[in-house]
């Protein structure tokens, strides 16, 4: 059987901090995205060059798409969700490149000769996806509090009415479970894809893995889309909820 490890392998340590192979890939993806966006926006012209028009098409298309999901809140949430989409998409696709997960070194760990890949798909490590999920969760609460201050807190702590109180407890639990579901969805899909590809390449090295590779490209795209779309929906729900509470507290009437 091929070598499969659920946890990311530790490649080296810098001042006591373990540097795993998934972390190295994350840094490479970040660097790649930074360089590409710098090159695409370095000297923008009214009549765009090829690179600039591709970047404009990408950002414009994303903006139009998120506008259909979030409606009037699109300009507030767009920078966050578009960055999430681009990062996750690149990370998923970089994990499929040849050499990622296969180039590495043999080392002795606890007296056993073990293979340690130098690179590993960034989102095939639970740490990366959990970090993304926690960050998203904090961002959702931040946007909620930013638009309407304390009124947003009524979503979780409302003692005016026993029903609202228990509803608040439920909301709190559902916010926490979103972190788990975000992290496990992305990690599960991408890691399962890597295991599938490894097993297929082991059983039949030629031709057969190709359709699965195509499917993994598709899955990587869909998961990036789902992650950013769910973030966009939760963000717009948080913002809209806060605005509604604020409106009610100021003695406004319900309309729309």
């Amino acid at each position, binding site marked *: 059987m091929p070598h499969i490890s659920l946890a990311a392998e530790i490649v080296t340590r810098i001042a006591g901090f373990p540097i795993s192979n998934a972390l190295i890939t994350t840094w490479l993806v970040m660097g790649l995205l930074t360089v590409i966006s710098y090159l695409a926006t370095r000297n923008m012209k009214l009549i765009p060059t090829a690179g600039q028009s591709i970047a404009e098409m990408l950002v414009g298309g994303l903006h139009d798409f998120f506008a259909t999901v979030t409606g009037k809140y699109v300009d507030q949430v767009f920078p966050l969700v578009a960055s999430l989409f681009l990062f996750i998409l690149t990370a998923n696709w970089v994990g499929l490149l040849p050499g990622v997960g296969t180039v590495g070194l043999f080392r002795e760990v606890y007296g056993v000769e073990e293979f340690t890949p130098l690179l590993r798909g960034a989102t095939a490590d639970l740490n990366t996806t959990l970090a993304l999920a926690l960050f998203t969760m904090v961002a959702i609460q931040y946007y909620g509090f930013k638009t309407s201050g304390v009124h947003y807190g009524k979503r979780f702590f409302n003692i005016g009415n026993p029903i609202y109180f228990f509803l608040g407890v439920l909301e709190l639990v559902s916010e926490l479970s979103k972190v788990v579901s975000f992290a496990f969805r992305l*990690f599960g899909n991408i890691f399962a894809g890597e295991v599938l590809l490894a097993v297929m390449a082991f059983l039949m090295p030629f031709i057969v893995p190709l359709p699965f590779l195509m499917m993994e490209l598709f899955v990587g795209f869909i998961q990036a889309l789902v992650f950013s779309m769910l973030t966009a929906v939760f963000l717009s729900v948080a913002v809209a909820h806060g605005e509604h509470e604020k409106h009610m507290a100021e003695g406004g009437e319900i309309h729309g």
Partner: protein
Amino acid sequence: MTGLTVAIGGAMPALAIGLLTSKAMEAIGRNPEAAGEVRTSMILGVAFAEAIAIYALVAGLIIKFV
């Protein structure tokens, strides 16, 4: 046990996704102008249903590899 984990955890979400998609296709057939909105909500619902299958898969992978 690993096989059963994924078998049961995969069958139910598969049923849910099938139901969701068939209803969404029906809705698009009845009202083709709303195709975009129906598709967006369908993908959201499918993502939630699929998450359950992925939990089962992660549990199966943990049983197998840890």
